[in-house]
């Protein structure tokens, strides 16, 4: 399946993104619990893009590994201010805005793979993968 891209410009796009991720996850054969995890992680990370990253996009990529395992990769990109202290941002309890500070570490617990790259002044990219159990 081809990868797709969704704009993340305003709050409404967050709801659109999580519904689209849930729909695709269901079509790919993810169980309900994993559909819920993916929709929730999308909501958390898309909100970061919209609120702190000045907007960006989400790329949805169905993937498979050499063992024939299938999954879904989600890439959240923004060209916002970036995160100066990534280690701090990944600690439970860290927050810059009105969030509960659960955003990044909480999101990491909902997926199998989690990678974050950020450059101050250039933007942030978070890539997550969940494999079909």
């Amino acid at each position, binding site marked *: 399946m081809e990868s797709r891209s969704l704009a993340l410009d305003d709050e409404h796009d967050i709801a659109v993104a999580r519904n689209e991720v849930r729909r695709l996850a269901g079509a790919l054969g993810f169980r309900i*619990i994993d559909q*819920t*995890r993916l929709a*929730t992680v999308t909501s*958390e990370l898309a*909100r970061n893009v919209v609120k702190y990253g000045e907007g960006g996009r989400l790329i949805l990529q169905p993937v498979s590994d050499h063992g024939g395992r299938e999954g879904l990769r989600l890439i959240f990109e923004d060209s916002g201010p970036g995160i100066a202290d990534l280690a701090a941002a990944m600690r439970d309890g860290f927050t810059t805005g009105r969030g*509960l500070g*659960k955003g990044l570490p909480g999101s990491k*617990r*909902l997926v199998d793979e989690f990678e974050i790259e950020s450059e101050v002044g250039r933007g942030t990219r978070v890539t997550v993968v969940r494999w079909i159990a």
Partner: protein
Amino acid sequence: MPVARIPILKVGRVLIVPIQVDMDDQTVMHLQERILSELERTGARGVLIDISMLEMVDSFIGRMLSDIAAMARIMDARTVVVGMQPAVAITLVELGLELKGVDTVLNVDEGFRLLRREFDISDEAEEEFNGETSTFGKQVARS
């Protein structure tokens, strides 16, 4: 984009809020304000929020539920969240959300039972209950 309208029903001294649509952030904030103004307007003592149709609770919605409970408490009302789907509960725990100050029960009946234990509303509420619900009112009155 139009804000989804979520009804707020009053039964006895309880406000019932059935959330049946996926809420965007604006709808969430709007709902919070409406519940609080209905609490003030009606003098209700309980808020029962039915989230059985919600397929996801993220940190934003979780914080809304905690905030409503905290604000309602200041206005002398208790908040109960009912009907959380198992997948939603699992995800909430993994996310690290605690829903501070929010009581959660499995269904609307249990929600009423819990709220009624908190304050004696049986006489007044029973008059307003009809059919199925009036049976429930009598059960509670007996217990």
